[in-house]
């Protein structure tokens, strides 16, 4: 079976082989791009969390400062 496959598989002409070679390299590039895009979306989520954290810390600091300024009855 294996020997038969090799025997009946001569080199393809350039115009036929080109689409297969292009396909293989496009698959590789697409894989990397999809991965980088997914990682970019995760990075954006982390940035959002960091912004939220900064806002929460600021508001808490504001509350603490207001409490210190309140006159003691």
């Amino acid at each position, binding site marked *: 079976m294996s020997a038969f496959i090799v025997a009946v*598989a001569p080199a*393809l002409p350039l115009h036929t082989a080109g689409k297969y070679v292009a396909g293989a390299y496009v698959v590789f590039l697409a894989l990397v791009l999809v991965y980088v895009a997914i990682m970019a979306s995760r990075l954006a989520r982390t940035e959002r969390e960091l912004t939220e954290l900064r806002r929460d810390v600021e508001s808490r600091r504001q509350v603490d400062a207001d409490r210190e300024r309140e006159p003691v009855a």
Partner: protein
Amino acid sequence: MYGRGLRGLAIATVLTITAAFALVFFYAPLDADQGFVQKIFYVHVPLAITALCGFVFGGLLGGLYLRTGDRKWDIRSYVAIHMALIFGVGTLITGGIWAKASWGHWWVWSDPTLTSFLIVMLLFATYQPLRFSIEDPERQSRYASVFAVVAGAFVPLNFIAVRAAQGYVHPRVLTLTGGNLPGSMRLTFLISLVGMALLYVTLWKYEMAAKATRMQVRALRRTLLGEDSVAPLKRSAAPS
């Protein structure tokens, strides 16, 4: 910590892969037997080698977790296997395209190289479901590390078994005695392999940096605003 040197590594990766692809199409000669289709070799084989090395790397890191109990090794092992799986998917797709162009079939079950690679991929494809099925983080890390070590050890054994097999249609161009790649093809292949290995290391570091940053943000939130301010993590295959 993981982000250190990432920019330089990313630049080196882009330069090496660009150089490799330029060599593939403008320097390496056409193969006498397969013609232009053989150009797929320079992306398919480095992807396969990097994926298999990635699985072994994940196993070694899993072993370090079992030895030290430090969760950073489990995270590293998880990311290493995750990256190797992505490279493995690339290998299977580019291999299928090459097989179709060269042999007229997308897949040849009688070839041990193809079938053994699929077995390795299916084996490691169970890594994430295994993790997901265990709720307790410590047990999850321990069981996943044991799996990573055993499956990682299976990879070289599998490779040796395939090499020892006789009936294959996959050409053997890389051997310990030098193989049968001419100099220009060998140089192009080696640069492609270095590029692919650099890509693996860059993406591994990139994902590690992203995970470490996310964990630091959660830890900071917990420290500054208290335990209640952090939403409980959903059940996940990823270490946290």
